[in-house]
């Protein structure tokens, strides 16, 4: 029983540790008039493969992608607004103004 508990604790620790480790991309999406917009944001890698699930911005226009690998991505907002970005280690803020 003790061994099982120990294993569970270690497993939880390793899981928690891995969650803490990854980079994050966040920011605010605004329209032409710099007003926050509620819209879908998708993250794709440099090859065009979608990373994780698309997120919808909050009423304040905020979005975030957590636990991602630091590398080049393309952020797609709505249907045709795209921004290439390199997400660095730790948190990276990228505010997006729709054209």
């Amino acid at each position: 029983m003790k061994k099982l508990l120990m294993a569970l604790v270690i497993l939880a620790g390793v899981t928690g540790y891995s969650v803490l480790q990854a980079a994050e991309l966040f920011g605010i999406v605004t329209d032409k008039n710099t007003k926050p917009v509620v819209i879908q944001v998708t993250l794709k890698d440099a090859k065009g493969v979608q990373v994780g699930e698309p997120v919808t911005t909050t009423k304040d226009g905020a979005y975030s992608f957590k636990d991602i690998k630091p590398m080049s991505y393309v952020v797609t907002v709505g249907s045709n607004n795209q921004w290439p970005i390199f997400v660095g280690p730790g948190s990276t803020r990228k505010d997006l103004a729709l054209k």
Partner: protein
Amino acid sequence: MSEPDKGKKDLWDILNALGPAIIAAVVAVLGITYNSQQASIAKSSEMRQVYTNIMAQRETSDNSIRASMFQMLLNAMFAKGLGTQNRNAITEVKQRIMFLDLLSRNFDTIDIKPLFEELDQDLIKKLSGPSLSAQQRGDFFDMLSELRKIGRNLSIKQLNALASLPGSEVSRCVILKNAAGDLQVMQDESASSGSDTSLLVEIKPQDISNGRVEIALEYNKRKASDSSFKAPSFLISFYDLPYIDNSVLDKDMRVGVVLSKYVETGDLSRFRNRIDRKLLQDYEDLKGDGISQYAELRIIKFPAKYIGNRDRPYLQDIIQTLLEEHKEGATVKPPAAN
């Protein structure tokens, strides 16, 4: 026709009789009102004077404290020989960092970059020195990280203050160096929707090493006579402050570059247990992608009017512009009718 009643007085007669009394009353009312207004103005002026005096006294005492503090800190750093005695002592380096932190927190408009740079380079030398134990090396690594954090916090604070002002614009640039020494630059477009494309600033990286990025800023000068002008290359570290370290982008605009992140993946093997646990995997990922150094720069373009009067050549230029504008305003003639 009956004769008018001689005893009956009309309105004119009444006014005629009361005239002097009415005039006296009006004069009295005007006098009281005037006195009241004068008293109010005098009181308001007195209050303003008191407020001005309090503020001036506060400013004077604040300046006095700051001057004493500045003198004390510099004396502590130089006069007492800090940094020359027992240079390997951890506590001494910690003290120097604390002094620099104090200086940067209280005097953010003076250029103390050389003090930071000197300690930064000193710590880098210590880290590569042969006579240190793993514990000492780790401690010096922590202190170098702390020193750079102080510099970065100050520069980001100034960047954010400038970015919040109208007419300012911030963009981000990532520079990567691989194991072979090749550099790759990725510049994001500005978050500002009203970006001025006539003042595009391009970062040309030359090298990255030891927490410094060597870059050249290339841009088109909108109003300058020499359109082929190119800025010389310079080194950017965590201690470059946009209030102080900025370049003339145009007569009306300045550009400052801030180093916001710097990572050497080689630190993983030397200081794994000293790196922020949250960033370990990010370091691993970068290293896995063959990246040896990662630097993130923030480029801020801002109106020159937010800069102080230290730039005397440009101050003269500003005065000249104002004089010309004043002259033009004085001689403006109405357009001729067709």
